């Protein structure tokens, strides 16, 4: 008898198969109950009547290549069996996800396109364990991600809701760094090379901050409340001294250009926080103040020059000292900054 005859004679004995086609064109057969475990395939079968024959094979999303499909089907084949205990399933899962990171990513992507949520969760948790505790640079390396945030975006000032002097200093460091970046850009365009004495220490420091543990700024858990930057606000009232280094026009021009660029960045960060809330008039002024304060923070770098030189020196010294302290006892500093808001200082003083 031919195979076809056998299928006709004993339909209950024969499993039904579903035809699946991956993006590369290859077609395969899969047991129906296994394939149906994937919601997307299930939908195709039930709603569109696809998959019953080779010619009507279900086209799988592009993110599902044959290798991934095979893995996914293994997963489905195991889990669709109703009788398994939780312990068995867990044990299978633990063995199943033992694969390299790249495959885990591919698998997550493929499972996601097939809407197979349990598998997406499983692979996501595995990937989460991989990225937990890693620095941004390490994460970029693992996943081959582009470093596509601009320098300015990375140097966004921290929101200093508790007026923490450490955050103030850090923001000042950033402002200085931003200023140096601007200067560097200016100099590049004029093709002049200058030795900036301070440059290296700030660079080192910041690459240490940004590279080694660059998440410091984000560790300080940016906050939604308004920023108390009374210092900054005061500074903003000073006008740029036209007798400064560059000519008045140039400085005004570059200032405008920068503030346009910075306003945009500022705006971008504010967009996240500003939600349309019709009834909340009392909240909006807060947000505006915050936006204002943020812009002021950005301007800090420019206005530094106008400070009385003695004061500026002192500030620079503060900054350098902070940088040095950061460098020297980094782990303790990290702990301090991390525990911001939870710090319990033993009382050895009292008024």
């Amino acid at each position, binding site marked *: 008898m031919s195979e076809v005859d056998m299928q006709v004679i004993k339909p209950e004995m024969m499993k039904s198969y579903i035809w699946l086609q991956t993006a590369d064109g290859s077609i395969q057969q899969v047991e129906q109950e296994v394939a149906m475990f994937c919601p997307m395939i299930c939908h195709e079968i039930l709603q569109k009547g696809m998959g019953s024959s080779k010619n009507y094979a279900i086209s799988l999303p592009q*993110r599902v290549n044959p290798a991934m499909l095979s893995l996914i089907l293994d997963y489905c084949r195991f889990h669709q069996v109703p009788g398994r205990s939780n312990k068995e399933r867990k044990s299978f899962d633990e063995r199943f996800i033992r694969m390299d*990171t*790249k495959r885990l*990513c*591919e698998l*997550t*992507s493929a499972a*996601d396109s097939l809407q197979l949520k349990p598998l*997406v*969760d499983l692979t*996501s*948790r595995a*990937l*989460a364990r991989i*990225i937990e*505790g890693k*620095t*941004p640079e390490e*994460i*970029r390396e*693992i*996943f*081959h*991600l*582009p470093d*596509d*945030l601009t320098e300015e975006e*990375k140097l966004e000032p921290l929101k200093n*809701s*508790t007026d923490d002097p450490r955050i103030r200093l850090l923001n000042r460091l950033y402002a200085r760094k931003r200023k140096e970046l601007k200067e560097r850009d200016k100099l590049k365009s004029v093709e002049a090379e200058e030795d900036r004495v301070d440059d290296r220490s700030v660079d080192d420091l910041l690459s240490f901050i*940004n590279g080694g543990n*660059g*998440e410091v*700024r*984000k*560790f300080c*858990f*940016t*906050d*939604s*409340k308004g920023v108390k930057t009374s210092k900054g606000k005061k500074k903003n009232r000073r006008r740029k001294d036209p007798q400064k280094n560059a000519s008045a026009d140039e400085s005004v021009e570059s200032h405008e250009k920068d503030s346009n660029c910075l306003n945009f960045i500022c705006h971008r960060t504010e967009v*996240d*926080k500003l*939600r349309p*809330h019709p*009834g*909340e008039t*009392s*909240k909006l002024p*807060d947000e505006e103040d915050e936006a204002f304060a943020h812009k002021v923070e950005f301007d800090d770098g420019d206005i530094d020059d106008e400070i009385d030189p003695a004061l500026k020196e002192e500030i620079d010294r503060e900054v350098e000292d902070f940088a040095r302290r950061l460098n020297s006892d980094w782990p303790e500093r990290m702990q301090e900054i*991390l525990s911001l*808001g*939870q710090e*319990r*200082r*033993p*009382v*050895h003083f*009292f*008024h």
Partner: protein
Amino acid sequence: MGVTALPEECIATIISFTSPRDACRDALVSRMFGSAAGSDLVWNRFLPPDYQQIISESVSSGSSSSSSSSLNNLSKKDLYFHLCHNPILIGNGNRSFAIDKLSGKKCYMLGARELSIIWGDTPQYWDWTPSAEMPVSLPQSRFSEVAHLLDVCWLDIKGRIETNILSPNTRYGAYFVYTFVSLAVKGEDEKYYNTGLDRPVKVSIRFENENEGNATNAYLLPDTPEEHDGRHPHMREDMWMEIEIGEFFTDQVHGMVEMCLMEIENGNWKSGLVVHGIELRPK
């Protein structure tokens, strides 16, 4: 290829399985990662599961920044940090709720009115000061009243909380939050002369159906020498003082936990203590 093939939602799912700290740090990885790291999907998972119910039951304190409708308008990330720094009043205004920043677990504080203070209703022993009438030199209270100890021999303060409202499977610490009125008094040596609290009090903690646990010595005065054996106070960021009463673990088994602070052995008169409440937060 790697993660760049993953849609932002997948990245957000991955990040949601890490921690709040990771999510903040991940904002610096790349543009897409940063966007995923700040998404509601991620921060919704970091918030306590029943946060919406808690917020909706909160006592509107009058300031619109804490009313439940304005809170619901915030992004989940903003809401998370708001609740970290701005405890909301719940119950009948005598308890507060906040979130522990690192873990996202629940923090509660029982205000003085929620505690059982022996002799608390006798005006010559304890005075209930409205927070608005507290001396400016003392820290602000988040509740409407604080308990001011005028004079008492039998110092006995207890607090109770149902462990099922706390975050499960968490080690909690209970902290007595207080200050001294005599802080406001100038004059170095006479600061704590009159409090009668230079000797230690006894603190203990137990689950309701258990026998009394061991009590520990606790020194309420801040400049107690370190050699004295027992717990010592710490200054909080909100300028109140706190001392640990004890710790416990929230498994699903136990119900009510009782925290106790007592000084009933010495027989001396004590005064000057201002009670803010008892705070419970993850250790």
